[in-house]
Structures are given as structure tokens and as C-alpha cells.
């Protein structure tokens, strides 16, 4: 509070004394609050979503909202607006945010989460109740995500920040109690504690407009307003793709998640469970050493699926255009795909097989069903990557293996709370039961695929222990910290990995996502052929991958795992109609800075006084100078 006392005094000094030490006065006026995450702006072909502050930052008087009464006070009795709302998860929902929006009296919303309180709210999902509602193969008739509030799919007129910092929160609360909380009817008459949020977004309107403005040729050096979202898909064929391969089974999972605030995209339940199970299935199948003849299996991790199926729609587009050569340079065609198996959200508890176009007596399906003791849901279309395949070929047999029936089990789908705690674990508890559930799916699926491609009844030497150990090692990399042995092994020697969770957000297409790179390298390491005779130099000369390896001594890998572009066809097709709704058109706005600081906002009367005083001083000085000039001969006796 010393800060703010100083700032109050300095404000008065400022009106009287000229700028002598501008920098230090700034430091005295504002208290920076670090460790915050901002909501940002995104566009699709027709709309604008998310948040932005005003260009110079939005200032609002702090108003802590803890109950309905605080919201009503803001709507009816407040006098010193605009306000910045400080609230926690129990008040953070669509209805209340809409009331803030309609009050036209809110200049920012700060969502806080106490570090002491590790309890998650009972549910929080900012995504739609029908995720990817407009890009599926069929209309969504019942909500898959009953907890979905659609906060993500709204254009908010105020900035929103998230903060999980006990110390900063107590400072804000203290300042609020000292200056704002008492005698609230007369707030307008005194200085009040305020927050300034700066998250100005460059883009506006929709993707079409901001992409056009970023590329128009009238200006030789146009500013960039927004960037298409996208990254890379990862693929790995079990056997080599040669001319003998007649048909292909695709096993897919999504690689990305979403959330309202930048960088806080854990995606544990929405993405990581399926992703880890797919990796384990692929690596186990490689371990079983299946020999492929005319039927091959391709594992694909698809990126940007949370935003209208960016990765899968691009994959299907490339297949249709006969332009998909990520598998050892060999062309894969759409009609070669025999079926698609997707690993959706997984976890403890019962499993469900959502199928389309599968014969109920199909051997693989009935084996999977009985071995996983899963419930079969025919003609079920959950929001998953298979939708992109069904959109192109509605008779393609597809399965989605998931832990949910007609409604998601995950209560934090695509939110910042979809982390380890969201899955029901604390940061130091054992993940044993999750590991076992996931490895059961991975092992069963891998063995079933093994018998399908080899035509045998199953692998001669199954090793479920291998799968369990693998998943036990994989999970912490995605759920606890990227500083883990597998990611270190899959990076070039000497790489410093961050000791934190990597965001699963797909982000803009022009920068590579660390989590995609690490996952791709990891799949390459564990499914590729080591070349022990090659050193680092010889390895890179042959365009092979040089990485630390499991014993950290450096190993050269000849990998068949590969990337393909996961940028929506909307940004590839010339003159694509962005409003047609065929492909994903998501873009993210460019911004310059994101930040928040606290200050003492003087009352309107003080501000008026400063302005009048300044004007009076200016006009008096003009008159004085004019007077002196006109009487110069008398005053200075030059005549």
C-alpha cells in the first residue's frame, strides 16, 4: 500500500511540478501485476470472438464480485464506472458475463483462482455444448458437452485476464478494501483503486477482412493483422507404403486442445489421454514387429481439431487432391482407406465405441467390444476428427473409442482446468489406474490391429507390461512437465526443456508448436531404426534425425514418422469463399503487448481540477508573454 500512497502524493506533485524524472514517477503511479494470462481475439470466416482492450489499455475501478448482490449493485447503484470486475470461478459463467456486457459499465474482467484452494469448480467448459457445431458431417441434435457455456464463442467488449497468484490477489483485495469498499454510494467523489488491462488486438471483423488487409498489394509493406491457425499433423505407417499395399486402416487422435486464455491450454482429458494412447498403440505395434502385406496401418495425430477440424480436413483434402505424400513419398489415396479408428477422450471407467457404417458382425469390432467390455453405439457421431472423413465419404466405416456415451464425462472440456486435477488426480498422486485403463485400450487395439494386418489370431508374445511402462512414462510428459526423460531423449542432445506444462493450443501456422515437434520426434525415436554406426555429422548429412536417445549419448534415427501441413484448405485454395463454411477459417489476431497494472484513479472532480488548472496556467502565461512583449521597450529600457 506504500506504493499507492506514494502514487497519490505524486499525482498532486505531478500537476505542480514539471516532469523531472518521468520514469520513476511512472513506477510510483503504477503497480505492475505479472503472471497473468489474457483472453485474445480470434476470427472465423464470418465472426469475431474473444476479447480486446482499448488501444491504450482499458482502465476500470476494481469491483470484487462474490455474489448476486454485487452484480446487482453494479447494474443499478454504481456511480464511479466503468469498473473492472474481479471474480472467481463460482461467478464466472455465461449469464453473469452477459450481464456485465449489457451493463455497458465494465471495462475488464479478472478471473482469479486461489493457489491455496486446489478445488476445481464442479464444471467449467468455455467451449460450445456442441463442439465444432458447424463443421461436422451431421447437425448436432443433442449437446455432447452439457457443461459447455460457449464463452469462447462470444465477442466480448472488454478485456479478460486470468491470474493465479495469491500475493497479487491479496494486494488487489487490500487496495479495494482500503479505497473502494466503504461508503460505496459516494465512490465518485474520491480516488479509487483501479486496474488497467492492456490486450489490444489488431484484427477485427472476420478472417476474410483481416487476411485481406494483411496481404493487400497497395501497400508494399503491409502490417500483419491476423494469422491463420494451424501447425503440423504427424503420421507413421506401420509397414512401408509400397505398391503391394491395397488398403489402409487409419488410427487417429487429436493433438490439440483449446481454452479462453493464451498459454493455459492443458487439454488433459480432452486430448492427452487419446494422444498418449495412440502413441502407445503405435509403439507397441512397432515392438510386436507386425509384417505388413496388402493391408497397412497409418497412425495420424491431427492438429487444430478443436477449431473446426483443421488438421483432419486438410488431410482429407490432400487425400482427395491426390497430394498426400507424407508416407515415405508414396501417394496415399482416399479410396485406399478402408476404415478409420479414432481414439477420443479416454480415462477410467466404462468405454464406448461410437461406430458408423460398421457391420455389427465385423470381427475387429466385435473383438474390440468384447475385450474392452465397451458399449457399442451405432450411428453415433461425437464431435471428433472422423467427422471430416465422413463429410467426404459418408459410407466409410469409422469407430471412435471414448470414455463417454452421448454426453462427455469430462467436465472441463477445452478449458484451463482440464489438467491433472481436472482428471481427478493431485500433482503428486499416482497415475496408476489411469495408466492401466489407457494401456488396456492401447494393448487391445494394437493386438487387434496386429491380427488384422498379419491375418493371424494375435501376436505370439504379447507384452502388456511394455505398454503399461510406456504409458506410465508418457503421461507425466503431457500432464506434469515437459522436462521428462522421454522428451529429453527425443530432443537434440543438450536441449533445455522447460519445467512446465506445454500448451496444447494449435496456435498460428507460421510458428511451430513445441508439443508437436516433441511428439513427432518421440514417435520417430520409438518407431524409427537407430543407425548406431552414424555420428552427429554423418547423420545430418544423410538427412536423418540426430537426438539424445534414451541413454542421452546421442543416436541417429532413420524414421518413417513424418509431418504434413495442418493448415486449413481455406488458406490453400485460391479465391476460397471464407463465408461458405466448408473448411475451417480460424485466424488469431496479432497483438503487441499483454499486461495488467494497478493504479489509483483520481476522482472526476480531481481530474477536472487538473484540466482547469492547466488551462488557466497556460492562458495566464500567454497573456503574460504578450504583455511583456508589448511593453518590452519600457521593461528592458531598449528605446
Amino acid at each position, binding site marked *: 500500500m506504500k506504493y499507492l500512497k506514494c502514487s497519490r502524493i505524486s499525482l498532486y506533485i505531478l500537476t505542480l511540478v514539471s516532469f523531472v524524472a518521468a520514469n520513476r514517477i511512472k513506477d510510483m503511479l503504477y503497480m505492475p501485476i505479472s503472471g497473468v494470462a489474457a483472453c485474445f481475439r480470434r476470427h472465423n470466416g464470418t465472426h469475431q470472438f474473444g476479447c*480486446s482492450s482499448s*488501444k491504450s489499455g482499458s482502465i476500470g475501478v476494481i469491483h470484487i464480485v462474490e455474489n448476486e448482490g454485487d452484480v446487482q449493485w453494479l447494474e443499478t447503484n454504481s456511480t464511479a464506472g466503468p469498473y473492472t470486475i474481479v471474480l472467481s470461478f463460482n461467478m464466472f459463467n455465461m449469464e453473469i458475463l452477459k450481464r456485465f456486457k449489457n451493463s455497458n459499465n465494465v471495462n475488464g474482467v479478472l478471473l482469479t483462482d486461489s493457489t491455496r484452494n486446489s478445488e476445481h469448480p464442479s464444471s467449467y467448459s468455455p467451449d460450445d455444448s456442441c463442439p465444432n457445431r458447424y463443421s461436422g458431417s451431421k447437425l448436432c441434435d443433442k449437446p455432447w458437452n452439457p457443461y459447455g457455456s460457449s464463452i469462447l464463442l462470444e465477442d466480448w467488449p472488454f478485456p479478460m485476464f486470468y491470474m493465479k497468484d495469491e500475493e497479487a490477489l491479496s494486494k488487489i483485495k487490500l487496495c479495494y478494501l482500503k479505497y473502494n469498499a466503504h461508503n460505496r454510494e459516494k465512490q465518485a467523489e474520491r480516488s479509487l483503486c483501479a486496474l488497467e488491462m492492456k490486450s*489490444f*488486438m*489488431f*484484427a*477485427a*471483423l472476420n478472417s476474410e*477482412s483481416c487476411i*485481406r*488487409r494483411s496481404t*493487400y498489394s*497497395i*501497400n508494399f509493406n503491409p*502490417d500483419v*493483422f491476423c494469422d491463420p491457425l494451424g501447425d503440423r499433423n504427424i503420421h507413421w505407417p506401420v509397414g512401408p507404403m509400397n505398391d503391394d499395399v491395397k488398403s489402409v486402416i487409419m488410427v487417429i487422435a487429436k493433438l490439440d486442445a483449446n481454452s479462453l486464455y493464451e498459454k493455459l491450454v492443458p487439454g488433459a482429458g480432452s486430448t492427452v489421454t487419446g494422444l498418449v494412447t495412440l502413441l502407445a498403440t503405435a509403439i507397441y505395434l512397432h515392438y510386436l514387429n507386425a509384417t505388413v502385406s496388402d493391408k497397412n496401418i497409418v497412425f495420424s495425430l491431427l492438429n487444430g481439431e478443436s477449431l473446426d477440424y483443421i488438421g483432419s480436413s486438410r488431410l482429407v483434402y490432400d487425400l482427395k487432391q491426390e497430394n498426400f505424400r507424407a508416407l515415405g513419398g508414396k501417394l496415399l489415396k482416399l479410396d485406399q482407406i478402408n476404415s478409420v479408428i479414432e481414439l477420443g477422450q479416454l480415462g477410467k471407467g466404462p468405454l464406448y465405441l461410437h461406430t458408423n457404417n460398421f457391420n455389427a458382425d465385423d470381427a475387429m469390432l466385435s473383438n474390440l467390444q468384447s475385450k474392452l467390455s465397451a458399449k457399442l453405439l451405432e450411428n453415433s457421431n461425437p464431435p471428433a476428427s472422423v467427422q471430416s472423413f465422413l463429410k467426404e465419404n459418408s459410407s466409410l466405416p469409422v469407430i471412435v473409442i471414448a470414455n463417454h456415451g452421448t454426453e462427455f464425462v469430462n467436465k472441463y472440456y477445452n478449458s484451463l482446468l482440464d489438467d491433472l486435477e481436472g482428471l481427478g488426480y493431485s500433482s503428486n498422486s499416482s497415475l496408476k489406474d489411469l495408466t492401466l485403463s489407457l494401456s488396456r485400450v492401447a494393448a487391445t487395439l494394437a493386438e487387434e490391429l496386429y491380427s488384422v494386418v498379419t491375418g493371424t489370431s494375435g501376436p505370439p508374445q504379447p507384452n502388456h507390461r511394455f505398454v503399461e511402462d510406456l504409458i506410465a512414462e508418457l503421461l507425466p510428459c503431457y500432464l506434469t512437465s515437459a522436462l521428462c526423460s522421454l522428451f529429453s531423449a527425443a530432443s537434440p542432445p543438450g536441449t533445455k526443456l522447460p519445467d512446465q506444462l506445454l500448451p496444447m493450443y494449435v496456435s498460428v501456422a507460421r510458428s511451430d508448436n513445441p508439443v508437436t515437434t516433441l511428439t513427432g520426434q518421440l514417435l520417430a525415436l520409438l518407431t524409427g531404426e537407430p543407425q548406431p554406426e552414424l555420428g552427429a555429422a554423418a547423420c545430418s548429412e544423410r538427412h536423418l534425425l540426430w537426438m539424445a536417445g534414451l541413454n542421452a549419448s546421442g543416436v541417429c534415427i532413420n524414421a518413417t514418422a513424418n509431418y504434413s501441413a495442418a493448415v486449413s484448405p481455406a488458406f490453400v485454395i485460391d479465391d476460397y469463399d471464407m463465408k461458405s463454411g466448408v473448411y475451417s477459417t480460424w485466424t488469431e489476431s496479432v497483438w503487441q503487448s499483454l499486461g495488467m497494472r494497478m493504479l489509483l484513479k483520481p476522482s472526476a472532480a480531481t481530474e477536472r481540477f487538473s484540466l482547469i488548472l492547466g488551462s488557466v496556467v497556460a492562458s495566464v502565461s500567454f497573456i503574460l508573454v504578450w504583455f511583456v512583449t508589448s511593453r518590452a521597450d519600457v521593461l528592458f529600457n531598449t528605446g
Partner: protein
Amino acid sequence: MDLSKMPNQRKLFLCKCYFFAGFAMLPFLWAVNSIWFAKQAFLAPHFEEQKQIKKYVILSGIGALLSFSIYITWIILFQTQRAAWGEFADSISYIYPFGIP
């Protein structure tokens, strides 16, 4: 330049020059012309070239007013309708505003 020290013929020449140069999309010259020579055209005691100077001053004034009213109309129209015109407005803009349609 001090007009009062200039021969009348030179004044006429200058005024004429400014008037015709204004046609090169330079209405500001017309504005300057009409203000600069206004004293000579209307207030100065009669001289031979005054009638012609008057003519050019009046025509320059009309030209300047006309051009500025067209300018102001266009500026108001463009600033208020830019967002509504969409792609067309973007195609005739050099600098785009940040954060607004």
C-alpha cells in the same frame, strides 16, 4: 514577396499563374491566390490590371470552395461508410486501422 512593391503587370502575371496552376489538382493554390490578391482586387485604388486580377481572384475563390467542399464531402462519406463498403474500401485504402472493422 511584398505585393505593394511590385509593378502591376507582375501582379497580374502572378495571379494568372496561380490560377492556371490550380488546375493541376492544386486547389490550395486557388485558396492562396484568392486570399493573397484579395486586397489588390477589391481594396486597392484603381489600376489598369485590377479588373483582370479581380476576375482571377473570384474564379480562384470559387474553385477553392468547390474543391474543398468536394473534399470534405468525400472525407465524411469515406470515414462514416468505410466499414460498410468492406472490400471496396480496403482496396482504396493505404493504411488500415487497427482493431476496428
